[in-house]
């Protein structure tokens, strides 16, 4: 039903953009964090529209369930939350960085070759995503699409093992750093 899909797309867009504006403009930091969670959920809605359920579910699990909660934890420990963020000298560099990022993302979006996947093929993409433990059938998408021939897991510990390990080392270092900072001076 393309009509319903369009309708859902526009509702999600309005919610996502409105909530994103709210994150920046609302003064109460706690409400900003909640609105950020709304943005994450509506982005998950876009993933569902693109029939990427796996990505949508992971988006909610990680961004809403973990990252938002950590933000809120952090905000809880700050004082004067309702007065918002005071301006400081980093405003102009922040604007520059944000605009550069925006330009980069728009350029990437324009330069990408977007092609819709037919229904039958998209189901195979789903099975490739979910059956990553067992590995999806090779060449599942047929010709014409540069499809991953293996599941996510096999890619992670196959072709991309070096970046994967680098990321895990980085996370480990961050964990140990956090522990070192949190440790009280006395002991």
């Amino acid at each position, binding site marked *: 039903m393309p009509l319903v899909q369009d309708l859902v797309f526009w509702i999600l867009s309005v919610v996502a953009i409105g909530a994103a504006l709210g994150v920046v403009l609302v003064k109460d930091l706690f409400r900003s964090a*909640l609105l950020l969670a709304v943005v994450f959920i509506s982005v998950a809605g876009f993933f569902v529209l693109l029939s990427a*359920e796996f990505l949508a579910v992971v988006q909610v699990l990680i961004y*809403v*369930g973990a990252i938002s*909660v950590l933000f809120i934890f952090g905000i809880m420990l700050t004082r004067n939350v309702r007065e918002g963020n005071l301006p400081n000298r980093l405003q102009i560099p922040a604007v520059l960085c944000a605009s550069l990022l925006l330009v980069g993302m728009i350029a990437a979006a324009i330069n990408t070759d977007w092609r819709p996947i037919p229904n039958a093929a998209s189901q195979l993409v789903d*099975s490739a*995503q*979910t059956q990553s433990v067992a590995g999806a059938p090779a060449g599942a998408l047929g010709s014409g699409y540069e499809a991953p021939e293996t599941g996510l897991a096999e890619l992670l510990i196959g072709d991309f093992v070096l970046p994967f390990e680098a990321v895990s080392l980085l996370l480990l270092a961050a964990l140990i750093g956090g522990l070192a900072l949190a440790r009280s001076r006395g002991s």
Partner: protein
Amino acid sequence: MSCQLASDSILYANGIYRVVYEIVGVVLPCWVAYAIAGLVFAFILVNAVLLGAAAITWGERRLLGRFQNRVGPNRWGPFGLFQPIADLVKLLTKEDLRPDGSDRVVFSLVPVLMVAPLILMTAVLPFAKNTALASLNVGVLYILAVSSITSVAIFMAGWSSNNRYAMFGAARAVAVLISYEIPVVLSLLGVVMVAASMSLGTIVEAQALPFFLVQPLAFFVFMAGMSAELNRSPFDVAEAESEIIAGYHTEYSGVRFALIQAAEFGGVGVVAAITATLFLGGWSGPWSEYLGWLWFLIKTGIIVFLFIWFRATYPRLRIDQIMAFSWKFLLPLAMVNLIAVTLEVFLLRGDDGVLTVTDLAIMGVVNLAVTVIAIAVFGNLIKERVSFRTRQPQNVVVPGVSTIEVI
């Protein structure tokens, strides 16, 4: 005019949905039938959760009464069956209070946000053969993702109440939720690996031998972790009435309090249903073609009874003991289970990647031994650390995990 669902639609496998859709589709346009069939099914799910919550409040109070050698509510109706209705009427007629200086919008959103994830979770549950609203291929992940929204709702309740006790309760609840999420997810990985699917329907069909026999360790970790995530005794520090009044819902009254309580007891029911699906074989059983729903209800009831039994048996733990129990006991157990199951699947799986009943039975026997040994070993290790009390406060640093104060 009649409507037919496309056979590749996500809703096609659902028998009830399809029947309603086709009957309504005879007289009305297809998109109306689509909406009506969805609403009918959603209506059933919402009522199942709320009625289940009411039934569990009654069952829990009656059973706790028996466990504590007293009678329990027995005045309204046979065996006190109408007690939940009386409770509801009482709560509905109470004044709806909001504390001074609270964040009104966030405060009023909380009860809705507490109930919504539960109802969303039921969407992927197969109540009988081919009776899930959406047989998602990432069902297990979906349940974990939706249930993680609850922690945001608890934070909102604690923050918007403008009450120190509510804030403490929320902080405790979320700390417990985050800590216990990890062993629970790791224990589910074993289930997903043996079933080779994340779809709940496929997991039920893969249970030629119920998974609580195949992986007793995963079942134990899941049940313990879930009692903690539901804030139930012995892990109910988030609403420890002797310390912090009622935790994050201290300031709630009237209909909002009723909704939060419904979420709490409905949560027990939904989690029990999920456990029954993942570990007890869901709707499978003799004559499951016709009696699948009955098996599902019986198995869910058994798990609910277990949760109530836990609650009646164990005294409340301290927050540091709860953290230690998760990080030092459940997490290693979940790891042991994961390694054992990975090795067994790797060794026993045939060339076609299928595990037969015999394979499952072998896994069950081996895993039972693993369970006994692992619980004995890690139980001994944790015993010294937690119950040992030193005079001076000192930090126990668990490498790579967390800092826990032992006083």
